[in-house]
């Protein structure tokens, strides 16, 4: 049953997201073409700014849309009228939640991959890719000097933290929407309220956790970090961020599961 639910999830969300991914990749190609033509027709230089702006706007829109599609699908399919169909299928509520979590995670990762692919497409053929190793070496030396950490390590930490926090944010929205179904006649307002409260809780716990970590490592939470300890501090912050995201993600998942399994009250 989980496989079947995942199939319909991909069908419902893919029809909206795949065209956006296509547009983003196409735009990368168009910018690339623009850069090529600009070399031959200098008059096109003015268009470069417009193209780059459009490209950045499309990139931002792709991430925003990917998030919106996934969250609105959960709301529309489970809490609105379609919920009358979904929750009368011979499937556990937990299976519904798992299917949506799997699919939203795949889409979050795919959006990031398509964005990266689009950037590479934009730079292909203009020496960007061949210049990349050299640029990375220079950046590596500079960043090691400032932070005591290599650029690839920094990028990996950043990427991992970003991806995990995307998944955690999806799960936080799912819990907010699940709580929202209790707000008779004001479901969206209740969901937004729940989201804000959860946000405050997450931020508060994260700050306290960082404070405690600083106490344990002997770092001054309110002061400057000595240069020699900067790399260690960064690693600690990243690791803490990832750990907390995983912890919160699990809590939000369990919370949604409890509400949808035991406290379902579709209007």
């Amino acid at each position, binding site marked *: 049953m989980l496989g079947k639910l995942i199939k*319909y999830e991909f069908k419902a969300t893919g029809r909206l997201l795949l065209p956006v991914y296509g547009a983003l990749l196409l735009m990368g190609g168009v910018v690339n073409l623009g850069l090529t033509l600009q070399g031959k027709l200098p008059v096109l230089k003015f268009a470069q700014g417009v193209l780059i702006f459009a490209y950045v706007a499309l990139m931002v829109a792709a991430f925003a849309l990917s998030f919106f599609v996934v969250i609105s699908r959960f709301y529309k*399919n489970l809490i609105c009228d379609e*919920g*009358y*169909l979904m*929750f*009368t299928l011979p*499937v*556990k509520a937990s299976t519904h939640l798992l299917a949506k979590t799997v699919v939203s995670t795949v889409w979050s990762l795919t959006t990031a991959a398509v964005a990266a692919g689009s950037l590479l497409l934009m730079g292909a053929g203009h020496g960007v890719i061949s210049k990349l190793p050299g640029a990375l070496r220079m950046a590596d030396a500079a960043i090691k000097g400032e932070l005591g950490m290599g650029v690839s390590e920094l990028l990996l930490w950043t990427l991992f933290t970003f991806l995990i926090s995307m998944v955690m944010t999806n799960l936080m929205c799912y819990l907010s929407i699940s709580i929202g179904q209790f707000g008779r006649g004001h479901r969206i307002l209740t969901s937004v309220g729940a989201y804000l409260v959860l946000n405050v809780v997450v931020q508060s716990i994260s700050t306290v956790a960082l404070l405690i970590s600083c106490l344990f490592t002997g770092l001054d939470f309110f002061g400057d970090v000595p240069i020699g300890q900067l790399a260690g501090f960064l690693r600690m912050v990243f690791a803490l961020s990832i750990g907390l995201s995983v912890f919160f993600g699990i809590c939000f998942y369990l919370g949604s599961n409890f509400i949808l399994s035991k406290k379902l009250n579709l209007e």
Partner: protein
Amino acid sequence: MNRDAIISCQGLQKRYSYKLALNGLTLEIPRGRIVGLLGPNGSGKTTFIKLVSGLLTPTAGELLVGGHRPGVESKRIVSYLPERTYLNDWMRVEGILEMFSDFYPDFNEAKARDMLERLGINPKDKLKTMSKGTKEKVQLILVMSREAELYLLDEPIGGVDPAARDYILDTIISNYSENATVLISTHLISDIEKVLDEVVFIKNGQMVLQSSVDDIRENRGVSVDQLFREEFRC
């Protein structure tokens, strides 16, 4: 509780923050009957049906559907038609046929396609483009094409014209499985009376009467519609 009855409940209670919708409902619905769940607006009919279909959780009391608490096992044998349209708007008709086939082993796709064809509904049509009435008919066809043990129909003829009402009632009578129970909730008694075997009157979240239609007509000498008007006089 009688595990042979298709629905069996005792002291069933459902409380919302603003209202006590079901107040200690106790009743048994037998197998193989067409039963009318009759009551005025706000009496608890829809709440009861949603509890049986697993869309709500009871506040108190016991409820068994086909011998199981509402859950995956009961959902397998129950075919539910809500008052509202619950279909995924973006799908085509053939998409929803595929979905029903995927999730319900008892779904008879050939029968559903036949009924759709007789109504002139093209399976390639998008649900989004259909009128409300057509979508309701598609939903009814999907629900009645299942070979379920219990059909729950919540106000199936409310808000449709008299010709459509006849079509809906004919579809119900000619398509339900022989040993199955059809529970129809409605406040339009006179239209539905002719198809009913048994009636349950519900008021303020409690049962006030359960009787066969023959019994009402022969022993009380009134139609169900007349009895309803007497029982629920304002």
